[in-house]
């Protein structure tokens, strides 16, 4: 009877029941995803015609959603968890995530279905064999499958049944392990993808921190340092006003001039840190820039939301730099600034009616505009964006910056 005790001990664990439930329910729950995989194979065969390609695209989009479906079951029954897959790339047929998920839909079903089939047979025959002595005693043969001729032989059969039932949990565990391996290789984001996600999150946090820091410094300088300097200036002015001694008056006046210079410097520093006008929104800030521009510039901002500080600040400084370039090099009489967005991107366009050749200009003198444009490209790249310059000789120059939309 020690075999039965062993079986009992293993069977009493919750883990075994959950794993059994996972395998048996999987045979049913994975039917739809298996159908998806079969359709996928059919669509691959059909992909020589346009209809097949369209079908395949749709199936891949569906396949991309299956990891969440599988994860919901695995989370509940096995306590497994894994991060979301990375967002879809632009071209669905080249989406390796979707292809891998589709492969899992097929292989995962084959594995679980086979395992479930074997499990049910093992459960049935194992239980029947284990209880064979009782059946013998009652003189019934429920499955007509047992062919013992003596009472003793029934006990051998019972032992075999016990062994089978004892082995079953280990078989199930093996199946679950195999499935986990499939999940790791096919459903979870690849190691590189996870690393990229990690780095992207880190960079976003850094950018937000930097923007917040600059903003705080700007605020401290304006509300603290500037106010104190102005107070100091006011006090010096009062000394000037009150004193009868010409020497003191001159000294105070000189000091007051120094304070004024310090205030001017402070204003220039702050302008380079975080343009305060950005607090009132991108449109106000860009209008201020345009108002300050040597070449008349029209501003049109049409955004569905408020971009994060880092993005708004990048757009602001890019426009500032580009307007300076337009005034210095383009020989333009007008400039147009537009900021628009769609579902995923934010686009800035700065256009002028000048003589073009912006890229050549930078190549020729090697400084000025060149370093400026390169700097702008770096700034765009740091935010995962791009900057394009179209500036044929004779003009016009159109600079486009595209940034990911994150709001």
């Amino acid at each position, binding site marked *: 009877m020690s075999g039965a005790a062993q079986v009992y001990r293993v069977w009493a664990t919750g883990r075994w029941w959950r794993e059994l439930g996972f395998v048996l329910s999987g045979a049913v729950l994975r039917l739809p995803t298996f159908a998806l995989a079969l359709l996928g194979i059919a669509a691959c065969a059909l992909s020589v015609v346009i209809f097949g390609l369209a079908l395949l695209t749709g199936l891949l989009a569906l396949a991309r959603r299956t990891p969440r479906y599988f994860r919901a079951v695995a989370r509940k029954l096995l306590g497994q968890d894994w991060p979301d897959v990375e967002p879809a790339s632009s071209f669905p047929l080249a989406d390796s995530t979707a292809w891998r998920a589709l492969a899992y839909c097929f292989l995962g079903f084959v594995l679980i279905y086979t395992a479930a089939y074997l499990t049910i047979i093992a459960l049935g025959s194992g239980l029947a064999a284990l209880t064979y002595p009782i059946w013998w005693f009652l003189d019934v043969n429920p499955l007509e499958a047992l062919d013992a001729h003596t009472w003793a032989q029934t006990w051998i059969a019972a032992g075999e049944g016990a062994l089978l039932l004892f082995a079953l949990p280990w078989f199930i565990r093996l199946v679950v392990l195999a499935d986990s391996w499939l999940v790791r290789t096919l459903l979870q984001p690849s190691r590189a993808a996870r690393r990229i996600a990690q780095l992207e999150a880190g960079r976003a946090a850094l950018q937000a921190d930097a923007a917040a820091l600059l903003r705080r410094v700007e*605020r401290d300088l*304006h*509300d603290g340092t*500037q*106010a*104190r*300097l*102005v*107070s100091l*200036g*006011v*006090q*010096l*002015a*009062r000394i*000037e*006003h*009150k004193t009868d001694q010409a020497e003191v008056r001159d000294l105070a006046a000189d000091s*007051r001039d120094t*304070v*004024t210079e310090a*205030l*001017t410097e402070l*204003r220039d520093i*702050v*302008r380079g840190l975080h343009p*305060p*006008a950005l*607090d*009132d929104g991108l449109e*106000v800030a860009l*209008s*201020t820039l*345009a*108002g*300050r*521009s*040597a*070449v*008349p*510039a029209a501003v049109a901002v049409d955004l569905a939301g408020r971009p994060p500080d880092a993005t708004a600040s990048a757009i602001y400084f890019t426009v500032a730099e580009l307007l300076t370039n337009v005034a210095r090099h383009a020989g333009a009489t007008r400039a147009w600034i537009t900021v628009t967005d769609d579902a995923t991107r934010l686009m800035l366009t700065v256009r002028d009616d000048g003589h073009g050749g912006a890229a050549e200009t930078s190549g020729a003198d090697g400084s000025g505009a060149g370093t400026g444009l390169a700097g702008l490209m770096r700034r765009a790249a740091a935010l995962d964006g791009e900057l394009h310059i179209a500036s044929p000789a004779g003009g016009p120059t159109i600079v486009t910056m595209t940034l990911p939309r994150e709001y």
Partner: protein
Amino acid sequence: MRVAIAEDNPLLRDGIVLLLGEHDIEVVAAVSDGAALLEAVKKEQPDAAVVDVRMPPTHTDEGLRAALTIRAAYPSIGVLVFSQWVETSYARRLLSENAGKVGYLLKDRIVSTDEFVGALRRVADGGTALDPEVVRHLLAAPQVDAGLARLSAREREILGLLAEGRSNVAIAESLHLAERSVEKHVTAIFTKLDLIHDRSDHRRVLAVLRYLKG
């Protein structure tokens, strides 16, 4: 002259109160936010209000909004708005709705006491005061307005000084010109901007507005 002051930095607020007191200007209220200013103005009916743009609770443009409210509700009260930085759109908002009795200066100008007190008196008397820095920014952009485009460099310069709220005498002094020739230039500006002959002060304001709206 009686004025109300709204400035959230206590050090600076006290400084301004004392400074104005020494220039024979009576400060009837010194408060630290827009709502308190509106209350004080309602109660005291001063000749002018000195307002910081950025004040609690949002630290954005509540001062400017309070100033616009005062101008709309009490046509007799002038407002002089102080900003921490040059913001031409603020200046436009202030001036596009009001011809006169408004001023927009950088906070730094408080240090230049004479300019500050002069601007405050001008605003209370019905004139305008615009920060030279703001004017410089507006001037830097060649105007699209055809009339403004016709102005000569000297005339643009004089228009800029007009926009700051200076009188002909003051312009003549700062440009080292005879007052008579300043008058000639001003008349030329009016002609080029097609401003029909009216009371000359009114035309001055119109010229400035044309130039701000450009």
